[in-house]
């Protein structure tokens, strides 16, 4: 399945991709800024995400929260999100409202700072602290979002620290930080704008030029340092976390090839063989046959630089101890490494992934987001049309080679959640297990 794509670049460096589909009077506008928590400086964890909140606090010609109001009044949906390598902002609107969405995005890309005040920053800081409480601190296993990257990447690595940020660093964030972050990263040459759905290509181009054309290019951003790390941990890392949970859960991570690389597709298929749906290995063995797990899944983080992570996530049944869970999950992985997979397993995985890709293409917002993703992370939005073929190229032989290289005991990081005990002297220290080679 192929979708039409037209790509051009404005003089100020903004990369624009268009994908026309006139079946419904809906259009999606999607902006990826190539900045995420990885770009935060020391002592400012959580800032990229806090900054995302500030982008809804108005700009030169738009009042606080007016962005939300105008889009909803136009009959549209909108939001933003922050990840390690990027921050995105998106609207889906009735197609006659395309210009409104572009105008709003351009106003905050071009003139955010005049609208920034200390009071707005203070309020959003409180909102984000409550978001942290809600999604991390007051959720069972909620800290895995920050503990797993911390375990899997070295302390000096840009992916090591918390995306949502520490309360302390959030408190320290200032208006100067906002200005500096904006001028460094929120520039047209550090962004991709995608438009998918019902529009006229020539008109869309004119509108993009009208609203974004005069925004000045940035002066470059500091490159991320120390991104490159070894392919493997070199050992099995293990950390036990006591939490307010009733059932043990294991997150088992492997360093794996970065998003978009040839090896990525093999890793992605391996993840599906291990943990996608009820026919997957972990589900069949641990949930259905041995009945020691309540649930099992596996997925990739989709990081495009340094190293990606392939992650297995298994929750124990009430009568299963943490140790048993850990042992049985590793036994499954060992079995995979030793005996490999069949061609049928690869086909099952690829078929599921490919149906998901076609299904996602129904939505203008998904189309636009994926165009932005391929353009931002890999420099080519056209890759959206090559994904299915990439998955077709994955064979059992490739999976077998991959699992031998990457799923061994020298490339495992285990984050094991256990119910809290009365004894609060338990240590969360990271241990390195001896690896028998």
């Amino acid at each position: 399945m192929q979708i039409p794509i037209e790509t051009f670049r404005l003089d100020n460096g903004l990369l624009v991709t268009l994908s026309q589909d006139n079946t419904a009077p809906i259009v999606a506008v999607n902006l990826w800024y190539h900045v995420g928590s990885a770009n935060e400086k020391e002592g400012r964890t959580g800032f990229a995400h806090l900054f995302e909140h500030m982008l809804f606090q108005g700009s030169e010609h738009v009042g606080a929260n007016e962005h939300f109001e105008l889009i909803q009044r136009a009959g549209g949906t909108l939001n933003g999100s922050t990840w390690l390598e990027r921050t995105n902002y998106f609207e889906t609107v009735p197609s006659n409202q395309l210009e409104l969405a572009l105008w709003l995005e351009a106003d905050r890309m071009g003139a955010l700072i005049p609208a920034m005040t200390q009071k707005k920053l203070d309020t959003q800081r409180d909102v984000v602290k409550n978001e942290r409480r809600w999604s991390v601190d007051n959720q069972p296993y909620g800290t895995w979002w920050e503990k797993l990257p911390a375990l899997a990447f070295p302390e000096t690595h840009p992916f090591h620290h918390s995306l949502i940020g520490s309360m302390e660093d959030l408190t320290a964030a200032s208006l100067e930080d906002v200005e500096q972050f904006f001028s460094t990263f929120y520039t047209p040459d550090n962004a991709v704008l995608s438009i998918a759905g019902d529009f006229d290509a020539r008109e869309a181009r004119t509108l993009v030029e009208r609203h974004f054309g005069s925004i000045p290019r940035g002066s470059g951003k500091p490159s991320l340092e120390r991104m490159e790390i070894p392919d493997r941990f070199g050992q099995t890392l293990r950390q036990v976390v006591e939490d307010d949970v009733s059932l043990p859960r294991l997150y088992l991570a492997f360093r794996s090839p970065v998003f978009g690389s040839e090896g990525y597709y093999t890793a992605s298929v391996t993840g599906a063989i291990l943990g996608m749906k009820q026919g997957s290995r972990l589900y069949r063995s641990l949930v259905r046959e041995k009945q020691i797990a309540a649930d099992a899944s596996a997925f990739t983080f989709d990081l495009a630089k340094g190293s990606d992570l392939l992650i297995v996530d298994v929750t124990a049944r009430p009568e299963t101890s943490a140790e048993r869970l850990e042992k049985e999950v590793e036994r499954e992985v060992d079995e995979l490494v030793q005996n490999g997979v069949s061609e049928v397993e690869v086909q099952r995985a690829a078929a599921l992934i490919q149906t998901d890709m076609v299904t996602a293409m129904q939505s203008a917002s998904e189309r636009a987001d994926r165009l932005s993703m391929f353009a931002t992370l890999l420099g080519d939005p056209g890759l959206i049309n090559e994904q299915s073929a990439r998955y077709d190229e994955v064979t059992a032989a490739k999976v077998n080679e991959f699992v031998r290289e990457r799923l061994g005991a020298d490339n495992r990081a285990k984050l094991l959640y256990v119910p809290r005990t009365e004894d609060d002297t338990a240590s969360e220290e990271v241990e390195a297990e001896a690896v028998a080679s």
Partner: protein
Amino acid sequence: MTTAIKPTPGPAREYHFPRFGRQVLSNGITVIVATVTKLPLVSVATVIDATAVLDPAGKEGIAELTAQALREGTRERNGVQLALELEKLGTSLEAGADWDSTVASMTVLKSSLKSAFSIFSEALMSPAFREEDIQRLKAERLAERIQILDEPRGLADESFARFLYQARARYSAPMSGTSKSVSAATTDDIETFYRENYSPNATTVILAGDLTMDEGVELVSSMFGKWSGTRRSQKVVADDPARTSRAVEIVAKPDAAQSELRIGHVGVPRMHPDYFSIVVMNAVLGGLFSSRINLNLREAHGYTYGASSYYDWRRQSGPFVISTAVQSEVTAAAISETLKEIDGMREKEIGEDELTLATSYLEGVFPIRYETTSAIAGALANMVTFGLPENYFDTYRQQVASVTTQDVLAAAKKHVRPEELQVTVVGNPDLIRNDMETLAIGPLSVRAASEE
């Protein structure tokens, strides 16, 4: 540099919900087909009138267990084979029970529709209900039940329902049952529930996607045509309120990092004539990001990451709920602000600006909601479940647009009742109790987080 003037939109292009046809086959099963040819995909949603409301007393969760057991295999193939055969075709059978229906669904590439639908229909018509599979499903549900006590959001929703409804009302217990009721369920119970509730005349097969009405009817006749049985409709009362005066309950989670708040009362049934006025009223009160409650609690005070309100639409009266999570120290303050917003909705008409924000939002997002075949199938499933008229989707936007500020005020006065508000707080009693007592909303009780 940027443009000061907000663009004005041109005329909107016309949109209509996909046309669909409906036909009842000779064995009583209904087929609905919506042709959507954008991509080579078909979504199937089979709606069965086997609802959680029909769970036998003391065995709550049977409807859900029965739905899940559909994935565990048939007389011809076991659960692993069933899953694998569908997954090789790039799809899977999803099944779950709700208050008002059981829905089994899948989305599949058109090229695999026939093969997948053959397995799908077999799963619905001849489930094996093997003892060992049922025991495993029960154990998995029990594991979920244990986890609910760890998870403040789910715990708050459940505790609120239990506080809101009389113990004998089905809506007071969780849809998928409690540890006790799931433990009590047997394979016999599941077989009986299946026999009594799953039948062609209680089933509608909805197909949305790249196929014609004729193809759809032919497919369903060939696979479901020989299915027999009749089901008589049943009526069960599920929605009696526990009390009609205010009351507050703190569900103690001493380790809580926040207070999960639920404020509300028993709402109204889905087919209530005031439906559209209530939807618009709720959008202004707490349904939208720019709603009064969210702008107050989040944007003015920074108490929360988000606050919203909703009417949980069911055949009988589901809850009306204001839902948020706030920093423990401001729990009473957040409730107090919420009560002000409730009073405000009932005191005077909303501004014309607020009305048009809500109505133009609801009208505008209508096409956006139905971009995918599974969303279209889901909408039609909703139509079947509630018995909405066939022109419902074609008149939806008109109905929304016709709501006035007077209608909104009338809806608020009638359907938001401050004197009946029930409050559930899941949080740390040490940090909230004093302030809550000072606030004095109504009789206050504290209990430990528990299922029963």
